[in-house]
């Protein structure tokens, strides 16, 4: 067995093995071309599908991160088990502690609470988000969604989504009363004028959030100088451990620092799920491909039975015969994969400006999906199919190779 494997390995680098394999494929150019095109289209389509799928997920994550979550957030420990106002951090102390942070591109304090928004014509339960208008821009793109009016340009102004404006039946300049239960448990309220109306990429932000200046929110909930959370933008999205450690060190014990993946486990799970689906798609394509290649090689082996009989008769080692069939398979798959990459990446390049999905805008916004879908190719989209293709080529050639090796020279020559 070891000797046969050594002979097989030696055969793979012999010029005559490649010559016989290439000329063997060239003998039925149309058949080889059909398989090659099938592999190319299958792989190319898969690459495009994967790039669109990843683009969708990446944009969903990007939207979630840049709209509101940030790369990291810090809260008082136990914040998930309590009402929004119960777990708070000291604003000035926290900001001072973070002033020397090197791993962060930006950070912003926020206060979260719940309120009943009332207009003369309607009442809607909303989430209140108090932000520092100047700092918030370093973490999120909330202000970029402004569609009408101004962005928290003065005290006692608020910004609401177009959906919420519709529900409350208010416009820019109208008054909205926010009725809340403050931190002491007292029912209280305050009137705000609608300064701006934004159009957010997520339905919840669009229909159920009222954004105030941080000091207005602190006054409303009677938590002066205190905040619910700190949101952070890291310098690199892929390297969050260093900034997380830096923030944790700066803010000290009693503060929980989490990444966006931990804050949005559903999104994280969805990304992982899409990756798994990707592998299933790869497997499906390559299993189909393997059968196609095996079929072509097997036909080729059966058609060349006499030639194989002659090769074995003149003393060619069986391992060399296996090497020739495997080489044919590898060449076929390699050409198909190369053509598939060219096709797939050409389509991805052609779609670089994205596909306009605005016709489905309302439905997509409900899931935080952007209305322009841009394909995103990753290095894994190259290496994964390449690795699977090599394995496929080897597996697909095994059956025909064994069939070739089992050829009885006398029988093959007699049939001739």
């Amino acid at each position: 067995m070891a000797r046969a494997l050594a002979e097989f390995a030696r055969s793979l680098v012999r010029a005559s093995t490649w010559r016989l394999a290439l000329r063997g494929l060239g003998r039925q150019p149309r058949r080889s071309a059909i398989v090659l095109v099938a592999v190319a289209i299958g792989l190319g389509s898969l690459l495009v599908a994967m790039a669109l799928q990843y683009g969708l997920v990446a944009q969903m994550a990007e939207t979630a991160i840049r709209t509101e979550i940030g790369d990291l957030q810090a809260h008082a420990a136990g914040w998930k088990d309590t009402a929004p106002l119960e777990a708070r951090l000291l604003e000035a102390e926290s900001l001072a502690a973070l002033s020397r942070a090197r791993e962060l591109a930006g950070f912003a304090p926020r206060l979260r609470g719940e309120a009943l928004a009332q207009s003369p014509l309607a009442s809607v339960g909303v989430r209140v988000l108090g932000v520092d208008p100047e700092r918030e821009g370093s973490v999120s793109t909330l202000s970029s969604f402004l569609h009408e009016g101004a962005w928290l340009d003065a005290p006692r102004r608020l910004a609401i989504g177009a959906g919420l404006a519709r529900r409350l039946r208010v416009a820019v300049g109208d008054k909205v009363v926010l009725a809340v239960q403050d931190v002491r448990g007292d029912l209280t309220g305050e009137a705000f004028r609608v300064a701006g109306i934004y159009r957010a990429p997520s339905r919840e932000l669009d229909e159920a959030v009222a954004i105030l200046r941080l000091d207005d929110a602190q006054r409303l909930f009677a938590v002066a100088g205190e905040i619910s959370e700190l949101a952070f933008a890291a310098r690199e999205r892929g390297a969050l451990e260093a900034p997380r450690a830096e923030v944790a060190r700066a803010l000290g014990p009693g503060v929980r620092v989490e990444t966006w993946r931990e804050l949005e486990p559903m999104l994280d799970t969805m990304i992982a799920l899409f990756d798994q689906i990707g592998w299933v798609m790869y497997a499906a394509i390559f299993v189909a491909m393997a059968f196609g290649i095996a079929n072509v090689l097997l036909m080729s082996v059966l058609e060349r039975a006499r030639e194989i009989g002659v090769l074995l008769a003149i003393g060619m080692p069986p391992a060399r015969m296996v090497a020739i069939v495997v080489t044919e398979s590898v060449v076929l798959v390699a050409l198909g994969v190369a053509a598939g990459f060219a096709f797939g990446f050409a389509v991805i390049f052609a779609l670089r400006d994205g596909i306009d999905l605005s016709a489905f805008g309302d439905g997509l916004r409900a899931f935080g999906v952007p209305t322009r879908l841009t394909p995103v190719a990753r290095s894994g989209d190259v290496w994964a199919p390449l690795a699977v293709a090599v394995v496929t080529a080897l597996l697909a050639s095994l059956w025909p190779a064994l069939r070739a090796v089992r050829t009885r020279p006398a029988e093959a020559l007699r049939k001739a």
Partner: protein
Amino acid sequence: MSTLDARAVSKLYALRGIETWALRDVTLAIEAGEFTALAGPSGSGKTTLLNLFGALDAPTSGTVTLDGTDLSLLSRSELAALRLAKLGFVFQAFNLIPVLSARENVEFVMELQGVAAVARRERALATLAEVGIAELADKRPLEMSGGQQQRVAIARAIASSPRVGLADEPTANLDSVAASKLLDLMERLNRERGVTFLFSTHDARVIERARRIVRLRDGGVVADERGA
């Protein structure tokens, strides 16, 4: 010790439930340097016996040895190595590799033997010249006549310096002139290089050139005639 030795060899073919004895209890020894014809009508067992001597097939019963080695004890790989080292084949249908040129066909056996590229190229061209078709070195089989292809087959068989040449109806697809030239070549190789030749034929012109004639009929040896 004989070069080729078949002892009590029988071969049964079973095709779709129909059993046919191709050889029955054949015992035959071929000594080194012989120039032997296996003669007999179609179906007499000539090709089957050649295939058994050439380690291309296994007998149903009996033993076949090559230089004293019992072929039934060898694996596929060992049989391939034995064929490569000691045997040269010439087939009735030429059986060249169609995707290789004449030179590449001849070179291929030497490559399997591990001959270096430059040496095997030189030897392939020299061998093609020896069989009189040097000018066809770069032609593929389909671009050659039957006689030319058979000469390439001979060149392929002898380029590897075999001890034994096995030829199955080597002149069957050749005209009389080409057949005569081929036999001249085989005789010269036998005489000058000491290659043992065993060939099957039912052509009277070929039979009369053999120094030993083994006649087969219905799978059995019916006569073993030695000439001068």
